[in-house]
């Protein structure tokens, strides 16, 4: 078991999975991240991250129905596990805590 720390990109992927609800599979995750963050995301990277998240136990996956696209191959859909959710919450809490400590004017955009 790898450490439970969540990397920046891992967090992003995990959040995306949660956001896509039932429609999260590798390609859609890629697209979604690209849409939101406006940065180029390589499929290989997402794949590797999904694999890592799976190992850490934050996501679970199942194969969907076969369709005509994708050369007849089934999609692997991902959902966030309980552990995943807990971690996401924990990360958010830590961030919020830090946010609350910052005086309001310091971060004001000009």
């Amino acid at each position, binding site marked *: 078991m790898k450490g439970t720390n969540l990397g920046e990109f891992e967090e992003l992927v995990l959040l995306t999975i949660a956001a896509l609800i039932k429609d999260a599979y590798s*390609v859609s995750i890629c697209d979604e991240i690209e849409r939101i963050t406006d940065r180029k995301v390589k*499929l*290989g990277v997402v794949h*590797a991250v999904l694999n890592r998240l799976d190992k850490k136990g934050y996501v679970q996956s199942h*194969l969907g129905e076969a369709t005509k*696209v*994708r050369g007849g*191959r*089934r999609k692997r859909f991902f959902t966030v596990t309980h552990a995943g959710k807990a971690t996401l919450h924990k990360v958010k809490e830590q961030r919020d805590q830090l946010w609350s400590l910052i005086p309001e004017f310091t971060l004001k955009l000009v």
Partner: protein
Amino acid sequence: MKSNKTHTPPKWAERLLEWYCRANVLEDLQGDLHEFFDRNLEEKGPFRARLNFVLDVFKFMRPYTIKKLEIFNNITPFIMFKNYFKTSVRSIARNKLFSAINVIGLAISMSVCLLMISFLSELFSYDKFHPNADRMYRLMTTNQFLERDPSEFASTSILAGKRLQEEVPGIEASVIMNNGFGGDAKIGDKTIPIGGLWATQDFFGVFPAFQLLQGNPETALAEPYSVVLTEEAATKLYGDDEAMGQTIKLGKEDIYTVTGIIKKPPHNSHFTFESLGSMITYENERKETPDDTYWIGWNNIWSNYVYVLLNENTSIAQVSASMDKIVAEENAKDDRVKNYISFQPLLSIMPGKDLSNNIGKGMDTRILWLLSGLTFIVMLSAGFNYTNLSIARSLRRAKEVGVRKVVGARRKQIFSQFMTEAILISLISLIFAVFLFYVIKPEFLNLDGEIQSAARLLTTPSLFAYFIIFTVLIGSMAGFFPAIFLSKLQAVKVLKDAGSTRLFKKVNMRKVLIVVQFTLSLAFIISATIAFRQYKYSLAFDLGFKTENILNVRLQGNDVNTVASAFEKIPEIAEISRSMMIPSVGSTYGNTIKYEDPLDSATMYYNTIDENYIPLLKHELIAGSNFESRPEQEKEEFIIVNEQLLKRFDIGTPEEAIGKKIQINRNGDKVSIRGVVRDFYYSTVDREIKSFGFRYRPGQYQYLNLKVSTTDVIGTMSKLESAWTEVDDVHEFNAMFYDERIEQAYSEFSVMFTIIGFLAFITISIAALGLLGMAVYTAETRLKEISIRKVLGATEGSLIKLLTRGFMWLLIISSLIAVPATYFLFDSVVLAESVNRISIGIVELSSGVIVIFAIGFLMIGSQTWKAAKSNPAETLRSE
């Protein structure tokens, strides 16, 4: 893009992915890549899409996607091997007939292949024992007279060798040899013939592998009158006494000193010798007559051999470039005869080109190709049998495959199971094949003198290794198609469809194989028939004179009159004549002659005879008269010529020709025509008759021709032999009946006939066995059908017709292919250049077809007859 559907990712990349990727990751990864591919196809076009796909496939090679080394998976076949072996043995034992057919066919053809393998491996071992063999070359001469076809010689001129030694750089060592050394060696009062070569000093520099046991390799051949003997020759001459330093009297009372003892050249050396004489002796003897410089001339290319060893960093191209300059220079001096010199690598001498004046053994590469080709055909035939029968039998094995697959066997495993079985069968065949190999080996060696001198076919361990590799190879090839076929079967279909005959409907390959097999067999039979007929034809051919009961005795250097008078005393000898050579057995002597026109010359082949020769051999004199006995010293005055010679020079009718003068020597000597004989075949009958003359030159005789009238041949021969021994106790009596000698001259045909006939017999037997197997199978599988037909009223005749028809069609197709092909092959290739040849007719061509049809009908007919005769009640009751 409308053409989206036609673009797919590269197949190989997909396979690569499938190969390395773990099963649990594979499917969605593949899907993802496809999705991106489709997307890229629309955005960036097919090229970029494919490129990206390939790149991605490589990019995804990551620790978490790559399969674990599945040791367990790889080990399964080994664990299963025991099971495969067991099932194979059981299935072989269960189908006794089929296994027997396969084993017999494979064993027979493999024995021929084993023979070929040992033959080839021996031939290709020639001269490999020389340490620098790759840097050794022999000078080869291409001789061309005016615009005629050039002929190639293994020999060259001494001049070429000398100029090469002096002028061409980059040569480490070179040796000039001449094959005229040897003769009757006299030691004390003993006379023992020895053979050998003249060789220059550097012989051992070129051939260090010919080991000198005693003596100094640098000086052994340096002095005149030195001789190096092989161990065997030394024992022959001196027994157990020390040979080094002894003297031998050779030739014209010359005294030679033994300066070295050499190991006997190995069997796989392309030339051998008993002794080596120092070449300087030969040269000194020639220099005694300074006027005659022909021996050192550029055109004296007949009996000298030059071998060179190149420097390590010299290429043969450099050497031949320098040599070409010398050749051009020398050829410029003679406007009629040109000699071109090329370098023949030592390792391609034997087997190699078919050259004239070979120094020792020779084996034409083309003959090897031919033999290997024929052997291959035989093997193919047996392999086809296995493939055919196995596919036919696979009906029975289909269920087994189905069950195995259901239990979890992979395709690869089924494949290896059936490969195991095929290899097992071929290994069993190997055992029989080795026995057969020992049976046919001596037969093969005795076929032809050339084969016998070239090969001994000793069986060595490495040869057996070759045999086993070969066997495994044959097994795999024969088993490949059945294994592929069976491993392809789908478990569901096989198990659901009990009869499963439908699975085999599409197997047309079987028919193709049968057709190929029978085409080859037919071609073989027809070829064998033609070869046999041509052989018999050549033997029975009317040569133009009589050869019955003529015994030719070689004089071997003895005085002709002494021998003749010794034989005259024997009452069974009716007549005796003398001649220089024996015509009509292949070899010819020729010289250039001229008639009235000094610019018009032609080759006249000739024999030198005495006055008894023409009546003894019953040559027909059309005009003029025979020679008269004349004393020996007198100048050559008369000649008896053939009709062709008259035609060649347009001399007119035979009667007119008598008394006309012909110039027969370079120095202008003329002889007058005394008689004209009817044309006869002085060479072999496949060559055209050209100008021929009988000359009368006492002192040139090499043979006695004895007319023998006896019923007790053996008794007469022993009388002759004892008469011979009185005259000459050194050489063995060497005599042969003319007819036998002629047979020997055509041994080429007889060897060809024997080999092809034997192979024809084998291929036919194998093909017949295969056909039998197929017939048994067909009759067996259709037994119920036949019974039902019978119940419904079919006659036995119609049933036989039904079952036979399919096979007969295949045979007809084979004949349609084989007959014209073989006819063409012989008519315009093999026999095209022969003058007197059989015309290939209906008899030769149809013989094969009849044999094949007879065999085919016998095989198929017997089985279908059995099936048709069977009682329907018996066969149908069990259901």
